[in-house]
C-alpha cells in the first residue's frame, strides 16, 4: 500500500464514521464500522474512540491521528443503512477502495424526501396520534394543523441555525396555542389536551431516548448519558413551551378550559 493510498483509506474510514454519527447511528455502530473498514482496507494498528459528537482515531502506532467534531445531528436512517452496507461489502471484498469512495459519496448526498414531504408526513402522523389518544374528527383536524405549524417552525428555525432548545420551546408553545385558540374561537367542545398532545409527538425526544438506551446497553455509558441528558432537556423544553402558552391563555381568558 502506497502512502497516498493509505491516506485515502484513512480519510474514507473517518468519513464513514462521521456520516454515521451525523445521521443518527449509535456510537458502537460507528466504532464497529470504522474498525471493520480499517481492517478490510489494510490499515494497520487502527484504534478509534467514538463519542456522541466526536471521533478520535489513530493508525500506524500513533504516527497518524485524526480527530473529527460532529456538532450537529440530523437523523437520516437511510444513510446509516447505506454506510452499513458499504462496510459489509468492503469486508466481503465486493468493493475496493475506489468503489467504497464512490459509494460513500453517494451516501453523503442521500436525501430522498425533502422538506415538503417531511411536513406532510409529520402532519399526518400528528393527526393519527390524536386519533390514537382518543380524539374525534375535530381533535384530529386541529392536531394536523398544529403538527404542521410545529414542523414548519422547526424547519424554519433550523435553516436560520437557531438553537434546538429555543426551537423546541417555541414550537411546543405554538402548537398548544393553536389548539387553545381553536377551542376558544371555533369549537368550544374541542379537547385541547388530545389535540395538542397529538401535535406534540412531532417534538418528543423519542430518538434521543432510544439512542441513549442503545448506547447504554452497549456499555457506552458516557455517550448514553449525554443522549439521555438531551432527552430530559427536550422534555423540559416542551413542558416549558406548553406551560408558557397555558399561562398566557389563563391570564387572557381568566379561566382554565
Amino acid at each position, binding site marked *: 500500500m502506497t502512502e497516498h493510498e493509505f491516506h485515502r483509506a484513512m480519510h474514507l474510514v473517518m468519513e464513514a464514521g462521521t456520516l454515521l454519527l451525523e445521521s*443518527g*447511528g*449509535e456510537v*458502537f*455502530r460507528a466504532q*464497529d464500522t470504522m474498525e471493520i473498514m480499517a481492517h478490510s482496507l489494510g490499515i494497520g494498528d487502527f484504534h478509534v474512540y467514538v463519542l456522541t459528537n466526536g471521533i478520535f482515531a489513530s493508525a500506524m502506532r500513533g504516527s497518524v491521528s485524526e480527530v473529527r467534531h460532529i456538532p450537529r445531528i440530523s*437523523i*437520516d*436512517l*437511510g*444513510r*446509516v*443503512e447505506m454506510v*452499513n452496507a458499504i462496510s459489509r461489502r468492503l469486508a466481503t471484498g465486493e468493493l475496493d477502495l475506489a468503489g467504497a469512495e464512490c459509494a460513500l459519496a453517494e451516501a453523503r448526498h*442521500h*436525501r*430522498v*424526501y425533502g422538506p415538503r*414531504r*417531511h411536513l406532510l*408526513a*409529520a402532519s*399526518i*402522523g400528528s393527526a*393519527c*396520534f390524536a*386519533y*390514537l*389518544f382518543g380524539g374525534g374528527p375535530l381533535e384530529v383536524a386541529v392536531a394536523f394543523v398544529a403538527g404542521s405549524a410545529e*414542523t414548519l417552525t422547526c424547519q424554519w428555525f433550523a435553516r436560520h441555525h437557531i438553537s434546538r432548545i429555543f426551537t423546541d420551546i417555541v414550537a411546543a408553545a405554538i402548537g398548544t396555542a393553536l389548539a387553545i385558540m381553536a377551542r376558544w374561537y371555533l369549537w368550544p367542545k374541542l379537547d385541547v*389536551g388530545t389535540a*395538542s*398532545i397529538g401535535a*406534540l*409527538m412531532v417534538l*418528543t*425526544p*423519542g*430518538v434521543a*431516548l*432510544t*439512542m441513549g*438506551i*442503545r448506547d*447504554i*446497553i*452497549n456499555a457506552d455509558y458516557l455517550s448514553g448519558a449525554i443522549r439521555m441528558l438531551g*432527552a430530559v432537556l427536550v*422534555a423540559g423544553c*416542551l*413542558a*416549558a413551551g*406548553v*406551560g408558557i402558552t*397555558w*399561562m398566557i391563555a*389563563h391570564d387572557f381568558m381568566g379561566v*382554565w378550559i
Partner: protein
Amino acid sequence: MSQPLWVQMLLQFLAAMVATIGFGLTFEVPSRHFVACGITGALGWVVYSLCVTLWGLSAPMATLVATLPLTAAARFYSIRHKAPITLFLLSGIFPLVPGAGIYYTAYYLLQGNRVQCTNKGVETLKIALALALGIALVCSLPLPGQPHRKN
C-alpha cells in the same frame, strides 16, 4: 365507543401504522422498509392499548409489556431485511413515547395542582424507564446464528 373490540383494534392498528410510517419518513427511512416500520410501531401500540383497556394495567406496566414484542419485531425485521435495527426501532417506538405525560405534567404544574403534577411527572419517568428496560431486555438476548454480530 360502540364498535366491537376487533374493529377498534384494527382501526388503531392502521392509524398507528400510518403514524409510525409518517415519522419514519421524517427520519428518511427508505420506502422499502415502510411496511416493516409500520408493523413494528402498530404492534407495540395495539399491545399497549389492549393491556390498558382489557387487562387494566397501569401505563408504565403496559409500556413495558408492549416494548417487548415491538423490539422483537424490530430485531426480526433487521435480520430479515439485513438493515440496522435502528431503522425499525426509532420509528416504531414513537407511539409509546410519553408525550402526554410531558404535556399534563406542565399543565397541572401551571394549574397549581401539585398532587396531579407529581403523579404525572413520576408516571412519565416510569414510562421512560419501562421503555428503556423493555428495549434493553430484548436487545441483550443473544440469538443463535449471530453470535457477536451487532445490529
